[in-house]
């Protein structure tokens, strides 16, 4: 009983640390020089991405996750 209470409070403490960590994770606005580069964008190669999505949608049973899945060309 006491152990469960201790565990619960410990977990709450951990979650508080993670959440406060998330709000402190990041950089100052003027330290975004590297992140500003187009190569560091999440979708830095949209043409390759579109082509890869199309190829793998046609050859495998999975799609999406990264952007929207499916939408069909009904390719073989």
């Amino acid at each position, binding site marked *: 009983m006491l152990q469960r209470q201790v565990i619960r409070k410990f977990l709450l403490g951990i979650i508080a640390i993670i959440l406060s960590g*998330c*709000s402190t*994770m*990041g*950089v*100052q*606005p003027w*330290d*975004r*020089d*590297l*992140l500003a*580069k187009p*190569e*560091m964008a*999440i979708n830095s190669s*949209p*043409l*390759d991405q*579109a*082509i890869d999505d*199309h*190829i*793998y949608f046609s*050859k*495998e*049973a*999975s799609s*999406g*996750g*990264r*952007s*929207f*899945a*499916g*939408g*069909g*060309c*009904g*390719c*073989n």
Partner: protein
Amino acid sequence: MKPNKKYIAEKLALAATALIGGAAHAQDTDSEWDFSASVLTYVEPDRVSAAEVIIVGDKDYSDTNKFSFKVILDSLTGASANGAIEQNTPQTFTRPSGKGQFVTNANSTPLDDTFRDTRGQINLAWTDALMEDMRYTISTNLSKEFDYQSISFNGEIARDFNQKNSTISAGLSFASDQYNPYGKIPVPFSSMVIDEGQFANQDEFNTAFNATRGDSSDTITTAELLIGWTQIVNRRMLMQFNYGFADTSGYLTDPFKVLSVVDNNGITQDLVYENRPDSRNQHTVFGLVKYHLDESIFDISYRYLTDDWDIQSHTIDTHWRFFTGDTSFIEPHFRFYQQSAAEFYQPFISQASTMPSYASADYRVGDMTAYTLGVKYGFQMFEDRAEVRLEYYKQTPNKANQPTGIANLDGLDLYPEVDAIILQVNYFF
């Protein structure tokens, strides 16, 4: 500050006029169109080859809004496995249209070259700010080929937090597809009618063939949800986590694929058209990390997918871009993919067993491992950027070398590997 509703309505109106022709408000004379173009060739030796051209254009219409379009044209030739297994003797198959047949040699995987050939696609997207730190994107996609068409609408909202160090986004997508195969949709599990001289005339064949044909068209609808969290970790690193859910329903069967029905000696007695469930729900979780080292950028992503067809897959994708000069780079690429078979996947049907409710021998829903190895080189051409990408893709079924329980089948290649070479050129201007 304008009330939000009016602000959005104005923006949507602007979007409409911009799409129809020419922005209604004072033109931003310094903002021009940015274009990118890509030409792709995809070759599976002895199987399918494809060529594709993509053109993308985008333009900023104000501080916060951007319009972009994408046009794709692709063309397929060659042949693709039809699901039948190879035999020690040549096999004859009727084309899906019912007009004509083709013969597969002994000891080779049956490949059908009758399928959709040329496709055109157009995509339009509009992005704008909703309020401070909040953006939305709406887009539409239309794809058309000889026997298939698809239309979809997507909407996405993104909100920044912590001085834009964190972004939460949510998107919804709805797609409606229609299949109009030449020769109509086959009746599931009906036997392929093959003219081996048993018909007195063409009409008799046609009657028999038409008995295996159902509706001339069918539809597929998809609804998808995607939720994402992007987080900047430090000056060099960012990461993204997404959760996606997709619900597809309608005609999910492949009308061109069959299964071989074999006897105890491994001899094909019949060919039946496949049948898949009319609904599929998928969940995906995705994670990506990008890290900027001193002279290179590294990224790695992982995606896990699970669905109610019992398919689970793992995808690991990684790139490492090395800067080799002010304007050039070399980027190796590696992708690993593994999937477990759909519960209705089976390489053939044994004559002795009872017919299942659903079955498909399409290798693309089977157990498989695939890997891609590629390299991309980026350079300056005239005053603009160009890139060349070369990739090798190899897919290996995981059921290879598994005894089938039927002696004569064990000597045949029931699980062929598929490999492909991809060559792509990008140009930005």
